[in-house]
């Protein structure tokens, strides 16, 4: 590992704004917060994955992966980050390193040529160049290549040093944030600045979630200047240093970036979430308050309150209509972080019973909130083995599982409804309207008539009322021409069926003619 990268990692781990880190002893802090992975029992993405997740939503930039095929080839165009403009971000660019490139050390040259071709063909505002395990191992200097390419081609090439083996997805997020801070933010100036400019960090506009919230900001006259990185344009990210307030959405992955924006450019930040009704309102309130503190007109606060009152009334009216369709359902929530509790309260208010919520990736604060909302910590769990989850669902202790794609099939194979609440989902659930969409999704899942059919007995599960001994087969098999009965014991002569009484009701093996057969359909 290059020393620069090693220092960078140590630096991001020592995050003064992170509560967990601050509470550690000096000794512990030195160790960093990477949990050692257990071979044979690890799951989840690598640092490269995390970096890609954080940066790829910059929609007009090109994302070039310097790696043998697997890194880009097995992962490109697999995320639902939506764009309202360019779709260049969804194009899979990679150097596809070969054995010869690795052995002969041609990686850097190939990368340089790849950038050249990319710029010539697509002329993007910027090229993000991702390092991965192999080039990092053989010592390809992507920083130098990017520097040379930037000078030569006039298109900013940003090195993202987050090879997979350095750690987790979360670490990759942080390293991506560092890359933005070091190479992108502050490189362009907006035409004009207003006291209503904000940064939103950590929302990737999955399925359009940012757009569910944006109308609220539009109505308040708040402009998303720096979007990091939902539906972002490169220029937007480059101008992020001129915003007045930063909202850090979801998880603490990019807290380093938020803090550095604060320290370097004096942009205060707050953590908030757009999941759930009260959270959305809370986030809007804090955002407006901080904008006013930064110089916006104080009347913003009144407009904000009016908007919240109006939107909350509207969303509850809509949700009330859905209430009868979901009330009383037992939900098992398997997600993590702040969603452990932000969704719970809304579901409970709709009369659903949350029988458990996982607190993976959740902070102590999050856990406190869960306890507060559920009035007990009995329903809080960390990880649940798929086998246990299957059993729980199979025994119908829950009516629906809400989780990420990974546990999807645990529910489905137990013939239980499943609702996607993680980033791979196809529907946006953010803001006020998102809550309605989510409850609709629950309704659609749990009330699908298919479940009853699927759980019903197979035809062979119930014993037949009466059986008949069949005569031996006649003739020969049309394929093998083996005559029927050869080397096979012939069944005893069957009893002749009773002479039918009349044209109707002539029984056969318990089967009579039936006038109505609708019960089957």
């Amino acid at each position: 590992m290059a020393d620069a990268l090693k220092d960078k990692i140590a630096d991001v781990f020592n995050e003064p704004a992170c509560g967990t880190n601050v509470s550690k002893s000096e000794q512990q802090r030195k160790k960093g917060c990477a949990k050692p992975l257990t071979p044979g029992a690890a799951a989840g993405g690598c640092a490269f994955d995390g970096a890609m997740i954080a940066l790829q939503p910059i929609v007009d930039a090109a994302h070039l992966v310097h790696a043998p095929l697997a890194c880009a080839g097995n992962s490109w165009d697999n995320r639902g980050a939506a764009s309202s403009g360019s779709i260049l971000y969804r194009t899979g660019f990679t150097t596809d390193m070969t054995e010869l490139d690795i052995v002969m050390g041609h990686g850097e040259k190939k990368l340089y040529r790849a950038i050249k071709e990319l710029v010539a063909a697509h002329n993007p505002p910027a090229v993000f160049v991702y390092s991965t395990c192999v080039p990092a191992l053989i010592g390809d200097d992507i920083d130098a290549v990017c520097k040379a390419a930037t000078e030569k081609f006039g298109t900013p090439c940003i090195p993202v040093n987050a090879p997979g083996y350095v750690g987790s997805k979360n670490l990759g997020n942080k390293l991506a944030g560092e890359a933005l801070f070091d190479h992108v933010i502050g490189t362009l100036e907006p035409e004009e600045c207003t006291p209503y400019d904000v940064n939103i960090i950590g929302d990737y506009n999955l399925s359009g979630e940012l757009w569910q919230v944006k109308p609220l900001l539009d109505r308040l006259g708040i402009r998303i200047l720096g979007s990091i990185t939902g539906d972002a344009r490169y220029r937007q990210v480059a101008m992020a240093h001129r915003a007045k307030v930063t909202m850090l959405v979801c998880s603490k992955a990019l807290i380093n970036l938020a803090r550095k924006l604060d320290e370097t450019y004096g942009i205060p930040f707050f953590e908030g979430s757009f999941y759930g009704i009260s959270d959305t309102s809370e986030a809007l309130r804090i955002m407006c308050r901080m904008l006013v503190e930064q110089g916006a007109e104080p009347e913003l606060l009144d407009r904000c309150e009016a908007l919240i009152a109006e939107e909350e009334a509207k969303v509850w009216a809509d949700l009330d209509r859905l209430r009868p369709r979901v009330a009383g359902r037992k939900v098992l929530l398997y997600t993590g972080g702040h969603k452990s509790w932000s969704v719970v309260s809304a579901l409970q208010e709709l009369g659903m019973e949350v029988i458990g919520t996982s607190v993976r990736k959740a902070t102590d604060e999050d856990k406190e909130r869960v306890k507060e909302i559920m009035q007990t910590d009995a329903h809080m769990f960390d990880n649940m083995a798929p086998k246990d989850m299957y059993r729980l669902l199979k025994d119908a202790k829950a009516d629906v599982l809400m989780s990420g794609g990974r546990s999807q099939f645990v529910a489905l194979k137990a013939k239980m409804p499943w609702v996607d609440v993680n980033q791979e989902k196809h529907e946006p659930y953010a803001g006020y309207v998102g809550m309605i969409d989510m409850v609709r999704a629950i309704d659609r899942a749990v009330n699908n008539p298919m479940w009853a059919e699927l759980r019903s007995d197979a035809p062979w599960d119930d014993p037949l009322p009466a059986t008949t001994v069949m005569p031996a087969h006649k003739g020969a098999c049309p394929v093998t021409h083996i005559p029927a009965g050869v080397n096979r014991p012939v069944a005893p002569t069957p009893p002749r069926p009773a002479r039918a009484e009349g044209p109707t009701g002539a029984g056969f093996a318990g089967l009579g003619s039936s006038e109505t057969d609708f019960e089957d359909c």
Partner: protein
Amino acid sequence: MTKVVHPRHALSTNPLKSSAPLGAALAYLGIESAIPLFHGSQGCTAFAMVHLVRHFKEAVPLQTTAMNEISTILGGAEQIEEAIENLRKKSAPKFIGIASTALTETRGEDVVGELKEIVARRKDFADTAIVYASTPDFTGALEDGWARAVEAIIATLVPEAPERDPDLRRVNLLCGSHLTIAEVEELVRLIRAFGLDPIVLPDLTSSLDGHVGDDWRGTSLGGTTLEDIAAMPRSAYTLAVGESMRGAARLLEDRAMVPYRVFPSVTGLKPVDAFIRTLMALSGQQDAPPSVKRDRARLLDASLDAHFHTGGLKVAIGADPDLLFSLSTTLAGMGAEIVTAVTTSQASPVLERMPCDEVLVGDLGDLERGAAAAGAAMLLTHSHGRQAAHRLHLPLVRVGFPIFDRIGAQDICRVGYRGTRAFLYEIANIAQAQHHAATPQDFGAAPIAEEFDHVPHAATC
């Protein structure tokens, strides 16, 4: 109970139904060495033949009694006799199936009586089985004509059996007009999997499956043999697929005491379960063959994967009653919403069991209006629905008859566990293909300011 509604318009716009005689002709083509004969003016036959050829992409033998003005007024018995004579001379069919048309029915000919007289007089016609079904164009649709023809075949060719002496491994399979070739084959496969041997009536699987034969024939290329039809009384049981086959099944019971069961649908988990359960009982097997059990398990999984796309899917469907019922119930069972259902014939009792509030007895114009008003996401009907689909910008799933702008319609199978699986995948994939890329405007958000857009500069390399 679903309300059957007759729209109050005099004008039929883009007809949904095909005529009853055409259905009868199609059923007759499922008899070996057959020629269907329309008793009417030659245009009736020409249109029907073109319709059939467009669907099957096969030469279809179909003849006419070529009624003219004089014979229409004076009576067409001579035309029928002459037609039979000529057909026998030219193609030596073993079977001639006559279907009346609106023209001769309006005049009110006693074809049954006249045919009896002709057959009694013309001893030389003895080696051709002649069947007549009354199928005026003005009553019912393709499904009804098909059903009348099958009933006529049974009434004429199945001998009455005073005593019951069943072959326990034999079953009759009466196929409704909505089943494709591949679907009949799938049902036969299932029946055979239980060690049972079916007599299929009518059997299009060998006549209109689309194959290259060794010689040219002026008759149907395959189908149920007359011997098999005569053997139907000895079958242990009759499996009737499609509510429209109930009459034929009942007739068989009347004539030969063969008990029956009608399966209004063999698409969807529970209907197929019922079919399999019946086969188990008939074969005396408590268990099903491993392949059948596996196919059921795979259908369960297909349902799980498909329900994300079928749940809440708004569907507009137009078809003959049996097809309408089997596809609609399957989709509704998967959480889809049948927002518009249009059918061709009001007679079928399955219409009252439809999984929607009302069924219109109407045309493709009704389907188009209904689909537009209800915001349907998908149309299911035959190829003529393409105009509506185009205007509404909706995908069209081609089901029923005719399918003339796609080839291989006979190979589509939507019955049994396998066919249902394929059907669910088909619907789910079409739903996915319609994926709408969200925009900020969808949510009422302002677009991103142009200021942020990248202005490509001249390449420097």
